[in-house]
């Protein structure tokens, strides 16, 4: 497997990271080397019948009661945002 520059651009788009021409070249070289030397050898291992282990311990999800546990701290949280107005987060216009 070897990722083309176009594939790396597409992945960067999916990850919402702008990537320039110089960066896409160096990034794809590094990623291809990581796959080739570190990751690809794993693909040949026979794992037929092995259940994927998705977590460090085989836990079942705990349920909690549907109770209010947080106070209203709207102002404190809004104060951290780059841009707010009238108690709302501001982003560039999405709907004309």
């Amino acid at each position: 497997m070897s990722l083309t520059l176009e594939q790396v651009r597409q992945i960067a788009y999916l990850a919402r990271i702008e990537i320039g021409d110089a960066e896409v070249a160096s990034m794809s070289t590094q990623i291809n080397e990581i796959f080739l030397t570190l990751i690809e050898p794993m693909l040949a291992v026979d794992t037929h019948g092995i259940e994927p282990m998705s977590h460090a311990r085989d836990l079942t999800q705990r349920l909690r009661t549907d109770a209010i546990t947080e106070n209203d701290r709207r102002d404190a949280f809004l104060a951290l945002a780059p841009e707010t107005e009238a108690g709302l987060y501001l982003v560039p216009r999405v709907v004309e």
Partner: protein
Amino acid sequence: MIAHTLTQLSRALASREISSVELTRFYLERIERHNPKLNAFITVDPEKSIAQAKAADERLATGRAGPLTGVPIAQKDIFCAMGWLTSCGSKMLANFISPYDSRVIECFNAEGAVLLGKTNMDEFAMGSSNETSHFGSARNPWDTERIPGGSSGGSAAAVAASLAPAATATDTGGSIRQPSAMCGLTGIKPTYGIVSRYGMIAYASSLDQGGPIARTAEDCALLLNVMAGFDERDSTSLDHPKEDYMRALSSTFDDKPLAGLKIGIPKEFFGEGCAANVMHCVMEAIAVYRRLGAEALEISLPNMHLSVPAYYVIASAEASSNLSRFDGVRYGYRAPEYGDINDMYVKTRAQGFGAEAKRRILIGTYVLSHGYYDAYYLQAQRIRRLIANDFSGAFGQCDIIMGPTSPTTAFRIGEKIADPVQMYLSDIYTIAVNLAGLPALSHPCGFSESLPIGIQLIGNYFSETRLLNTARCFQQITDWHLRRPAPFDDA
């Protein structure tokens, strides 16, 4: 005072030989003097720390104090602390003043410990050298041209140079154990789920686990007593009976305190890739363990060589998901100039993340994408189970697995940063433990050319007590853990 362990400082505070304000001032002064050489701290706020120390002194006066009341502790900058800059080593959060406390910070606050400062780390804990930090690399006090290890490099550098008596850290692929080894300290990564991840900024959630770095195993037990415990706000927190890790430490010490202990030596840990000086010191340490009564036998972890590939697929996949929250909308960095909303996202994330974070996000996005998910992500999860099965097989034969923590001593700053493959291979002995969710400890076991070497002790689930007690027995008859780097030995 810098010769005192955390445990000794705790006693000195309890007996009022020293006040928390005096102790906190002592360390703040050392930070002011030495931190420019080490870059171990991202944030220090003397006013806040002294206020906490004053409150601790009042509490000590009334006799309502706990073992860590008044003790200054350095906190890794991954733990949200209300009112403190919590940057996680990233430009993305370089303006983030946390509006809440992580569980770990809550625990230390409830105990009356003093927050001495926030320590430097690799960006979002992604790194093995501390060089990916937005704030520049922390430096190793044993040789300031070298890395302190990572990702908890600032925590380790701070404790090694006695800028703090102890520090917190987190470990996703070795980030507590590897810097402990490289800075000559003792650190323990507990069983996954023992320390709450609430408010601990997520990198790879199925692997991340908090723990302490200090001089001695006894100090680690004291810290773990405060850090461990069930927390319903972390959905993977284990509802496990709370242990007293201090009480479990042997109070008596005879000739053969470890009689009956079976040590497994995995042959895969001593092959190609492990430096001769590291191998030598680790074998010497195992000889010490045998003198303490333990028995050593060779074991095999046949899938060990697959832990690095499985880790980089799983950790990157989880990172790409976890780091999707940084969008420039609710908190953190936002690009100064942008067009539409998509442009705002892509510019914010391009400018806010460093090269290593981007690389892992891209790898993670790829292995989770349509058509590649089965081949990479599910295959990595299947290998994860093979690795966990190797350990459970091994623990049928032995009680503790021992081997090197890191294949080399601390390398030079800049030596590996341009070569991600070499950098990733420096975690070859620590990663498997995270995949399996096991507890593991690193403690100093020797030096080579004035650089510390660590031995790693891996135990079965919930064997923290046994690991701490075993290391403590070693530390009763050796003094590697008490050595301090000369340039900072100037109390």
